[in-house]
């Protein structure tokens, strides 16, 4: 135990945090002796405890393993030359964009640009650095390059420093200086590309973020793609069902999905044609292996239609919800899993109950969960084929059919295959 405590102490010391060894031992001992936690688990728990205590990120502790201190002055580089992760570098550049960040341990996140291009930066809360402003130029010293999702970006940490620069840097943002190429939505497969596209606004979604002006789906003949129009872009609103030319928008990746962002460099122009939106409907057959929470009888916010959690809407607080039925199913064909979303109509169909039945059932049992239990009992473990457009992780199901009888022709085919081999 002493050894484990020492290791933890040393590692934190390397990261610039001096924790009394007694504190570490005390916590370890309590977990291992009093609460019978295995040493591995105890170590993990203690590390996490002190990381949290000092407002540090897990990646600080586990990444790099010991080479977290820059050796002297790190080399001055251009953004385009930062190609490798885990290097200490310095660079001068202009803050091209600041993004909203949702993570409390991140202080600021955005894009730094110079003559050679742009690079994403993350300024961590625990770096205790001054805030930077959009459009201003700075010298960044001792920042660390990191790889995330196959892309290099830079981290500003405790060892980094920021100095104001009294000059204007011409930035090359790979596009907006010239007109970015017009593409189809289906061709937008890579992040950080400047593109233009024409399409129809298929859906506008509720957006729960004050810095987002509009968010929704734009579609063309080749499919649909999510777009986010940031408040800071100061662009006109778009309307559902109308067609627009989006110029100079930039693609980014979020949760493995490509989407597009409209920013200050972008423009929106309404166009006078009707674009036929391609139907990217998919079909999936497999076993329905699970139904996620938030399924069954739910309540929605009367204002924004969001599902309520514990009677409250994330946007509008405590509201008198409206009942609805839905199913978030997980399908699995033995090769991949696929999430599928069933609306009220389909839930009523496969659950063999109306919304009113469900409400009555819940009232009888004094528990909404009975509806979900019944739905699980009916659906889980059976084979279904679902069809509908695919959106993010979900298939928005248009139709669902339970697989009928075994196809004897297929059995015969397989038997032949077994025998000839």
């Amino acid at each position, binding site marked *: 135990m002493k050894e484990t405590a020492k290791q933890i102490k040393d590692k934190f010391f390397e990261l610039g945090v001096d924790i009394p060894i007694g504190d570490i031992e005390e916590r370890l001992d309590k977990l291992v002796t009093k609460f019978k936690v295995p040493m*591995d*688990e105890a170590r*993990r728990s203690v590390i996490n405890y002190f990381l949290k205590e000092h407002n540090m990120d897990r990646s600080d502790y586990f990444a790099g393993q010991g080479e977290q201190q820059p050796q002297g002055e790190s080399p001055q580089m251009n953004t385009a030359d930062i190609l490798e992760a885990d290097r200490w570098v310095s660079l001068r550049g202009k803050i091209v964009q600041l993004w909203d960040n949702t993570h409390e341990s991140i202080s600021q996140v955005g894009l730094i640009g110079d003559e050679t291009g742009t690079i994403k930066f993350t300024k961590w809360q625990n770096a205790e650095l001054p805030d930077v402003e959009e459009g201003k130029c700075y010298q960044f010293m001792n920042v660390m390059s990191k790889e995330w999702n196959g892309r290099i970006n830079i981290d500003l940490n405790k060892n980094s420093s920021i100095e104001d620069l009294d000059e204007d840097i011409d930035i090359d943002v790979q596009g907006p200086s010239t007109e970015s190429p017009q593409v189809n939505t289906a061709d937008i497969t890579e992040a950080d590309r400047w593109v233009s596209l024409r399409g129809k606004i298929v859906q506008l979604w509720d957006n729960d973020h004050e810095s987002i002006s509009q968010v929704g789906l734009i579609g063309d003949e080749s499919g649909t793609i999510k777009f986010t129009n940031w408040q800071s872009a100061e662009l006109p609103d778009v309307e559902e069902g109308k067609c627009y030319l989006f110029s100079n928008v930039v693609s980014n990746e979020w*949760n493995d999905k490509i989407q597009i962002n409209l920013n200050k460099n972008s423009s929106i122009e309404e166009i006078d044609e009707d674009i036929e939106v391609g139907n990217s409907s998919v079909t999936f057959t497999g*076993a329905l*292996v*699970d139904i996620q929470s938030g399924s069954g009888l739910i309540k929605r916010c009367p204002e924004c239609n969001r599902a309520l959690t514990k009677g409250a809407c994330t946007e509008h607080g405590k509201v008198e919800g409206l009942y609805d039925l839905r199913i978030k199913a*997980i399908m*699995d064909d*033995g*090769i*991949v*899993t696929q999430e599928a979303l069933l609306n009220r109509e389909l839930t009523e169909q496969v659950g063999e109950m109306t919304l009113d039945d469900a409400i009555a059932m819940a009232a009888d049992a004094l528990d909404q969960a009975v509806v979900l239990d019944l739905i*699980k*009992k009916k659906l*889980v*473990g*059976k*084979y279904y084929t679902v069809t509908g457009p695919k959106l993010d992780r979900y298939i928005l199901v248009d139709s669902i059919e339970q*697989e*009928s*009888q*075994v*196809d*004897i022709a*297929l*059995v015969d085919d*397989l*038997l032949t*295959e*077994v*025998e000839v*081999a």
Partner: protein
Amino acid sequence: MAGYFREVAKRIFAQEFRESNLTFKDGDDQYAPQYLLTPTAAKVNRMFIVGTLTEKEDIGTDSEYWRGRVSDPTGSFLVYAGQYQPEAAQILVECETPAFVAIVGKQSTYTTAEGDVLTSVRPESIQVVDGNTRDLWVLDTAKQTLDRINSLKDDENDTVKAVEHYDTDAEHYRVMVKQALESLKENQ
């Protein structure tokens, strides 16, 4: 880092499951999922089975701990559900035998004092289903097993590992698949 992904529920017949004994983890993290590599190189963490619940028994001493035996055309699976699988255990309590059940669960192994590895299933959910669903599963599992048998010569990592470990006899598992498929025709 790939982030969270849900383990796919693999389809394997009871005979192959019973003949499996090679477990490993991807990575050193104590929370890394454990996999069972089967003779036809299915890499199993979660599995989906549909079969006939033939026996059930409370073998718990202090608290209830249910053991169920679920048979398919090639053999049977052992399923254990206790206080940490309350929903599944409850179905075992209520369910009559025999009954067709669909089980989604995780593979689990136990090594005896003699060094034999026993495989079992720790259910996440058990549902009573109809015979049609059971037949669909047999067909599904036959097809996926056959696909794996046909890929045994691939130089994919897990396949090589499985063939090396088990010295897999493709013919042996072809016979198993054939037997399962023929049982579907007898039902007609």
